[in-house]
């Protein structure tokens, strides 16, 4: 893929805003349309934009696949820990053990907010890993 200067410049300027939008989708998942899966996909689409504009090798130097793999395992551990925590606290398996807070505020849905973040991280790293290995393969 011959990287043209324009695509490279525009994508480097655009990526931070896409990442910001992804984070917005994750953190406001319980208040407005969005959530963990959608936010995670937007995050990985930002990284893929970098891949397409500067090639997989350059991007994987920035996001080394070993670090992304570690992040994914951390996210999966967090998810299982939260699932088991509900049971340990005595509510029930995967039950909401955090206070619900004031409806309509950001920190309001207790358990759901943190689950959204963990899933956002999980899906983001997962899809990035899949696309890295498939892109590197061709």
């Amino acid at each position: 893929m011959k990287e043209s200067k324009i695509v490279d410049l525009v994508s480097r300027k655009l990526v931070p805003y896409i990442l910001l939008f992804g984070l917005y989708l994750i953190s406001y998942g319980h208040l407005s349309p969005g959530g963990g899966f959608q936010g995670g996909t937007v995050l990985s689409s930002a990284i893929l934009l970098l891949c397409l504009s500067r090639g997989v090798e350059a991007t994987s130097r920035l996001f080394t696949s070993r670090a992304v793999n570690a992040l994914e395992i951390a996210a999966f551990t967090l998810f299982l820990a939260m699932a088991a925590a509900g049971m340990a606290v005595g509510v029930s398996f995967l039950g909401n053990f955090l206070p619900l807070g004031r409806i309509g505020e950001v920190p309001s849905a207790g358990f759901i907010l943190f689950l959204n973040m963990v899933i956002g991280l999980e899906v983001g790293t997962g899809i990035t890993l899949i696309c890295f290995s498939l892109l590197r393969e061709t």
Partner: protein
Amino acid sequence: MTMAETLPLLILLPFTASLLCLLARFLNRFLLAQIVTAVSVAASLLILGLLLPVLRDQGMLTYSIGGWPEPLGITLYLDGLAWTASVMGAVLSLCALLFAFGEGSYRSDFYFFFLMLLAGMEGVILTGDLFNMFVFIEIVSISSYILIAYSLTRNSLWASLRYLLLSSLGIAFFLLGLFLVYRSTGTLSLHLIPGSFGLGEGAANLPVSVSRSLGLAAAMLTVGVGLKAAFVPLHTWLPAAHAAAPHPVSALLSGVMIKISFLAVWRILTAFGSIEVQSLFRFLGPFTALFAVVLALSQTDSKRLLAYHSVSQMGLIAAAYGAASRAGSGALVASLAHILSHSMFKSLLFLSVGAVIHVSGERDLEKRGRSSSPPWLLIFFLAGAFSISGLPPFNGFVSKTLISSLFKTEPVLATALRLTAVGTAASMIKLSGIFRWSGKRSISLGSEGEKPRLSPFCIASLSVLALLCLAGGVLPRLVLENLIVPAVGSSKFGTPTGSLYGSIYTARHLAESLAYAALGGMLYLFIRSPFGSRWLRRLGRLRLSLDGALLLVVAAVVMFAVLGGYL
């Protein structure tokens, strides 16, 4: 912490263990993965043991995830059926695991996929929600695609892709059936769908369109899950997949996965109460058994021969289940008994043949290989071969007698089952050809250099399985009384009467089974004859194309919908 609290542990445990395996792969600590897997399988076996007394007096344990009641949230149900299936899964995966330690050539991500397969199967049998069953079926499918293609050889990749495409088409029909269920009953939980379609009390006031789409949904769900249980129209993926998979994986797939998929079909049909689809199995089962045995006889590759036997034995199980629509819960006892005994002797056969292949490197029955394998391995193989052909001291005899006693009144189906028994005996004799002793024992050992030694782990797993087969056969009352009858009791037919399985070791049954073995021997001689082998060789080369197999799945959906009382 009541005992019902431990239900989610049964699923959470394998997932946390697989997480540790993932970590072990990341830090490449190989031994950690092995230890963690063994500990988690043993722990779930322990939990199941603790749950037995509680289950005995309460009949059924339920646990709603997240505290949400049935229609809103998801509830796990542990009844006798789920308990028996989970114990079967745990015991067999322990033996397969021991064999994998013995072979020693597996990295830690093998154990990751192994645990995911186990947790997925546990989830399929425990969950009471249809969409959750879809998610766990997907977990089981993806981990079995990867495990089948784990050795990355050419034909294991092709076998895995064939299985992927066929199974995904089946799961898409499962999703379509799920859609119809939600449209007509407004709920996804299996236990709230009233048995309104067949026996249930709500049958009267259902409008025609709702009961019609429920019937169609039952057919699609049955084909969706039934594809993984591999009865005839949907079996095309199994021989290539189980032949190409690594030995412990093909033992686990043949031993446990196809059984748990059939038990899921059992659960769906009980919830829908659709008697017509269930009685369809009464004809489909014997046909599957006979059709697959004839194909098994024509195979030259040893593992492919065994894989066709899995399909034929699934036919027997489906036949017994189908007979329940007429013979009541006695047939369910026979079907579950054969599920248990088949899972044991089929894994024993796959692992012993795998051990021979591991040692002698020879898997084709036709080739005149000079390599020899240790003779005491033959003992384990004979234990499996005797029980699959239904010879007295083993558990195969018990369950086959129960099944054949169900079909006394139908001559046609009974003869099909008898021919299957003869065919099974003949193909076991053909399979024993893999234990060729080359005359020149000394030369073959010397020239081949250091032959891979069979590690004690493999011997341990083979002997455990052989003992289980023997125990199932020698004390049938123990197994039937407190393992199978309570399990069947939870289904809607009620607990069966004691009279059915009273007399198993009667002279007539013994004579019958020995007669089948003798006829099998004569059939084997006929196959060795020039006329027989030429005709068989042509049959052996028969291969169904992938598009044909996909088409068969669609045909199966239409057949099940039309014949299953949609009209």
